[in-house]
């Protein structure tokens, strides 16, 4: 299938659309999470895992991954169409996010034949859930400073230390783990190694952390003399930093090769506008309140400006003074906008703005929860304050703070 015609693609799109329409899951009766980082209950997890399996079995996940490992070996464009359809029908996301988007493409790129045979199919089917062990309590953004130790002992490595923000830690069968195998070497990066580590091992203990929402969405994972087989090492000892950097290019979407499927439920300002037609303020829909109307328009303006920036960034002649301004500010702009949209969504609900996740709350309390969860964007991956420093220093050339 090298020459795909538009007709084929259109037919395919119609087929996909029809399948999702017929097979989309019905309302689970409880509030679903919006990203894999927010999966907090067994009910939520099982619902999403079943949904991923169903999509995979229907053939709409990993379509461009090699057939011999469980994919379908088709051109990427088919997967893109299927993914777009999931987004436009606003379907639940694929929960095995780290497997599908980071670990999977990494294994396909750098893993051994045995790795590929062992892991890829079960990533797609959600049989094996993957988590990530990069950040540590004392090494957040400073990944190179990881202190978790892996010491070779016969046919095993013995792991000691801890990792934090392990999403899906209690459900995961495997972890992509960055650990220190040596403290000597040219620099702090040289002693790092990379493991495809099993999680169901004595001495590995993922302890759920309660978030500000009251839910449990991620873990701190403790390693206490945990023994993992030595063949879990990816590459050689000391390759860890380089492999972690390759992983990050998949994580940030800078490199293609992901399995496809949506990873989050996108929130747009139009959702807030739609809410404002239903939510009441003093007996009238919030959208009739002059103050709310003005705030909605302001955020719509900001949201549109944000969207237009990527179009403009593609025109070098319009980015002469500070060419890095748009690319380096993406996370800052997106995460702050989302936080403020959620804030507005809560603030337009009248007295019901004070409710939280419950039947009585508007949309089950989704907006309050989204607002609290939106801090994961403004804090994770470098806080907005750090992002301001980065843009100020690297884009405007201001001195370091």
């Amino acid at each position, binding site marked *: 299938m090298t020459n795909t015609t538009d007709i084929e693609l259109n037919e395919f799109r119609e087929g996909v659309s029809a399948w999702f329409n017929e097979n989309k899951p019905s309302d689970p009766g409880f509030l679903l999470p919006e990203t894999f980082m927010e999966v907090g209950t067994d009910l939520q997890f099982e619902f999403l895992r079943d949904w991923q399996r169903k999509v995979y079995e229907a053939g709409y996940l990993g379509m461009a991954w090699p057939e011999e490992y469980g994919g379908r070996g088709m051109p990427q464009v088919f997967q893109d169409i299927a993914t777009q359809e999931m987004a436009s029908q606003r379907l639940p996301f694929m929960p095995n996010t780290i497997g599908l988007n980071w670990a999977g493409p990494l294994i396909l790129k750098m893993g051994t034949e045995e790795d590929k045979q062992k892991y890829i199919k079960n990533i797609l089917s959600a049989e094996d859930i993957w988590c990530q062990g990069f950040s540590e309590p004392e090494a957040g953004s400073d990944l190179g400073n990881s202190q978790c130790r892996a010491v070779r002992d016969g046919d095993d490595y013995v792991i000691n230390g801890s990792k934090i923000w392990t999403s899906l830690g209690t459900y995961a069968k495997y972890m992509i783990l960055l650990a220190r195998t040596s403290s000597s070497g040219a620099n702090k990066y040289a002693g790092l190694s990379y493991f495809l580590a099993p999680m169901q091992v004595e001495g590995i203990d993922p302890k759920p952390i309660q978030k500000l929402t009251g839910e449990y969405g991620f873990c701190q994972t403790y390693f206490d003399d945990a023994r993992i087989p030595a063949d879990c090492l990816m590459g050689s000892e000391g390759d860890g930093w380089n492999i972690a950097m390759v992983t990050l290019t998949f994580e940030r979407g800078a490199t293609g090769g992901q399995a496809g499927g949506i990873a989050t439920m996108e929130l747009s300002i139009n959702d807030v*506008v739609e809410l404002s037609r239903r939510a009441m303020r003093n007996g009238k829909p919030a*959208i009739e309140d002059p103050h709310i*109307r*003005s705030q*909605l*328009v*302001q955020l*719509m*303006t*900001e949201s*549109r*400006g*944000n*969207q*237009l*920036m990527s*179009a*403009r960034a593609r*025109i070098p*002649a*319009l980015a002469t*003074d*500070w060419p890095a*301004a*748009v690319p380096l*500010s993406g996370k*800052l*702009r997106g995460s702050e906008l989302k936080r403020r949209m959620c804030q507005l969504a809560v603030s337009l609900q009248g007295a019901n703005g004070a409710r939280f996740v419950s039947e009585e709350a508007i949309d089950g309390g989704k907006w309050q929860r989204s607002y609290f969860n939106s801090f994961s964007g403004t804090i994770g991956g470098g806080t907005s*304050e750090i992002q*301001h*420093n980065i*843009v*100020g*220093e690297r*884009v*405007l*050339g*201001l*001195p*370091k*703070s």
Partner: protein
Amino acid sequence: MSDQIAFSEEQAMLLDTATEFCRKHSPIETVRARLGADQIDAATWQEITELGWLGINVAEEFGGLGLGLSCVVPVAESMGRYLMGSPYSGAIIASECLATSGSRTQKEEWLPKIVSGAIGSMALTEPNGSWLLDEIGAQAVERADRLELSGTKCFVTDADTSDFCIVSVNVEAQARLVLVKREQIPAGNLHREVVIDETRRSYQLDLDGITVPLDQLLKGSDFQAIEFASLLLLSAEIAGGLVGSIHTIVEYLNTRKAFDKVIGSYQALKHPTVKILLDLEAMRSHLYHAATRLAEGNTDEAEVALRMAKAHGSAAFAFAGDRAVQFHGGFGFTYDCDAQLYLRRALWCQYQFGDEAYHRHLLEPMLLDQTG
């Protein structure tokens, strides 16, 4: 679906040339020397004319380049960046107004003149400060084959040197446009106004006693075209002004020391400066999106984009000017500090053709009350 933002080779070339031109002709010393000037800078105007910039938006059949308003944006943006005081925007809006509301004869008479350097200006606003262009107090009454004008217009820029003004008036309760030539305005009817942006040469025009032949009444009365062109050029000027104010702020933050540290290292100054930068990036995206939609003739989308650009830009530039003054500390409080020039320019731009609250209010029904 076409591109969200299109940027042609002509636009890129004009942006390049105009940036260089304004940098050379409007360094900050020149801007300061010309504050409150009695005359326009005739030599620079001559060069602008020779460069063909007055004909960018004028159709080829009238001697112009026929490139459309979207190609004027880079020029207006560059002028804004270097705080250039010039009758340029007024002249462009006047030619746009003639092109959209003038009769064939009126266009044939005036457009070639504008292309070769005649200065036109717009007389729209009145003492009540209203932004509603077609709610007009001024009158034009037909008497003995002439139109007799009455009323008062404000913020008529460069009116003293304009070859003609286009004046909005009521004719038999209809909002209309009438062209008034310089020789038809008695000297005593023009009064220089004290305005916040001293790079602007702004006049009050008393219409009482002015009469013009009937054929100077424009055939059409396309006020929307006037508003769109004005919003586009003001937004371009704002985008340029934001770029200029960021450079001014960053330069000071990188040199001034306080408590043994360069002040740009303090987050209290650094973070709002980043906010100004990101506001510029957003507003400039709205601006070129608006230019793209206007060029396509997509009036509905152009209107949304223009109002978004002006709303976002008005607030952002006013904030930039305000912070520029504050960040310069004691020096910022003096007339010698350039920060005030940007603040004054920002406030002029903010209050001409609608501030951010006004445009957001107009956007509300367009964005919130349409279904489907």
